[in-house]
């Protein structure tokens, strides 16, 4: 009588799954008395295709800039180094910006990690909680001193990205064509007026203003923080973008 076949541990299966050069684990057969051979490759291939497709779909701006083949070439080592840590595939790829920081073949494209961050921010905004936007009239009807003391509530879909690269121009070029980007730092607001996240270029001081609001500072204090970065921040333009993007949901007035 044959000895009882030893079990194939899932750890063994997993190792062989992610390494195309690894041997197929013993104890797996073809159902006809032979070894599993390339039948194991079906699982290998399913995993690689599934995760590669998730990268291609999840990073549309990277894909538009680099082309599908180049993004596949990034995805192949990425998915081996960073398989998903959750079954929520719409969150997959959070580690891609840091991976690109160290990805030697594209090291000359130093802005790529920020492009990946933008795609992640757009995805996060798409799935964020719903919230009813603040009626712009409530803001415009306020006397200036009341507005100064008001604390504005930011929408759950709002994301802020500060880049040392012309990220807004790069995003426009990728999706809508545009002139070659001019070298400068850009701050982006991602907001979701309805169901589709939008990308807005923040005027100087806008990012600092938003960071202060997110901390719970009243608008006057946020404006002061913005003035520390840029002499005359255009507050009405910043507030206009926030209203346009449905990025404000409420305000709390001082008693």
């Amino acid at each position, binding site marked *: 009588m044959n000895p009882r076949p030893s*079990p194939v541990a899932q750890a063994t*299966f*997993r190792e062989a*799954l992610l390494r195309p050069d690894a041997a197929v684990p013993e104890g797996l057969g*073809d159902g*006809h008395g032979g070894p599993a051979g390339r039948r194991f490759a079906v699982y290998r291939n399913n995993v690689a295709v599934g995760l590669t497709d998730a990268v291609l779909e999840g990073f549309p701006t990277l894909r538009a800039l680099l082309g599908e083949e180049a993004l596949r070439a990034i995805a192949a080592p990425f998915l081996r180094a960073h398989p998903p*840590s959750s079954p929520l595939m719409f969150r997959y790829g959070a580690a891609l910006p840091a991976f690109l920081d160290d990805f030697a073949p594209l090291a000359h494209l130093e802005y790529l990690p920020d492009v990946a961050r933008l795609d992640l921010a757009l995805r996060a905004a798409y*799935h964020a909680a719903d919230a009813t936007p603040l009626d712009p009239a409530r803001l415009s009807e306020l006397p200036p001193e009341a507005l100064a003391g008001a604390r504005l509530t930011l929408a759950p879909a709002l994301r802020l990205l500060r880049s040392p690269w012309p990220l807004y121009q790069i995003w426009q070029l990728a999706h809508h064509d545009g002139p070659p980007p001019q070298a400068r730092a850009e701050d982006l607001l991602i907001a979701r007026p309805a169901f589709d996240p939008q990308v807005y270029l923040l005027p100087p001081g806008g990012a600092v203003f938003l960071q202060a609001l997110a901390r719970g500072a009243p608008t006057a204090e946020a404006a002061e923080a913005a003035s520390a970065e840029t002499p005359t921040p255009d507050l009405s333009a910043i507030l206009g973008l926030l209203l346009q993007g449905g990025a404000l949901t409420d305000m709390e007035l001082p008693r």
Partner: protein
Amino acid sequence: MLDQTRPPLPPLPGVGFKPQHYLDLLDDPAPVGWLEIHAENYMGAGGRPIAMLRHLAERFPISVHGVGLSIGGEGPLDPAHLARLRGLCDWLHPASFSEHLAWSTHDIAFFNDLLPLPYTAATLTRVADHIDQVQEVLGRPMLLENPSSYLAFAESEMAETEFLAEVSRRTGCGLLLDVNNVFVSAVNLGLDPRAYVEAFPLEKVGEIHLGGHDEDADDAGRPLLIDSHGREVADPVWSLLDHVLTRSGPRPLLIEWDTDVPDWPVLAAEATRAASALERIPA
């Protein structure tokens, strides 16, 4: 206590919901009587996916099909994921919840694929424990789906049908019979698909799946079918479905089409074919 008061899925054709078919489904869903969704795609906090699902749930019975629980995993079930499933079922009140006889997570790495299990006493105990836990958290019985197999474990001690029957007996869970998976596994492993059906506890089947497969070959040149869900259901699978329905009677029949998703009329034509299969069940 298991809550069995919800109306079950109707014994009609259903389709796996794809967002690109949203307006078609609201406009004229015939012959589709219910929809299935992949649970993990609706676990965000809000936005369009949730809004669409809320709206569809007012019109259609919904089946929630999980693809990420890793019921066959060697490790414990992820309590955070179980809580998310509970949260989804709590607001959606689906007609059914189903998952796979497979594993997909090891440690914390999730492979986004349904990986195979050996049919041993140890696996049986583990799977049954996990199903008990799922049913307790969700407060409802679940359906467990038979996998598509490309290889066999030397350590297996029993047939898949015997394994599934015993899991169902121990846990009280129902079964989801994927007829395409039966055909794919039978061809790949040299088994008789009709014998599989005859050994399957059909009285436990709460839902049937149908999907398309691709054809490849193994090292020895034998046919190797791949469960791709990317084309029409193959003719021999429709014949096998007739064989099932003659024995089981009417059941909810789902068309799965997950890759290279076609325009609505193509998917609706598959659902119409499923409706014909239900109509020709001998009385």
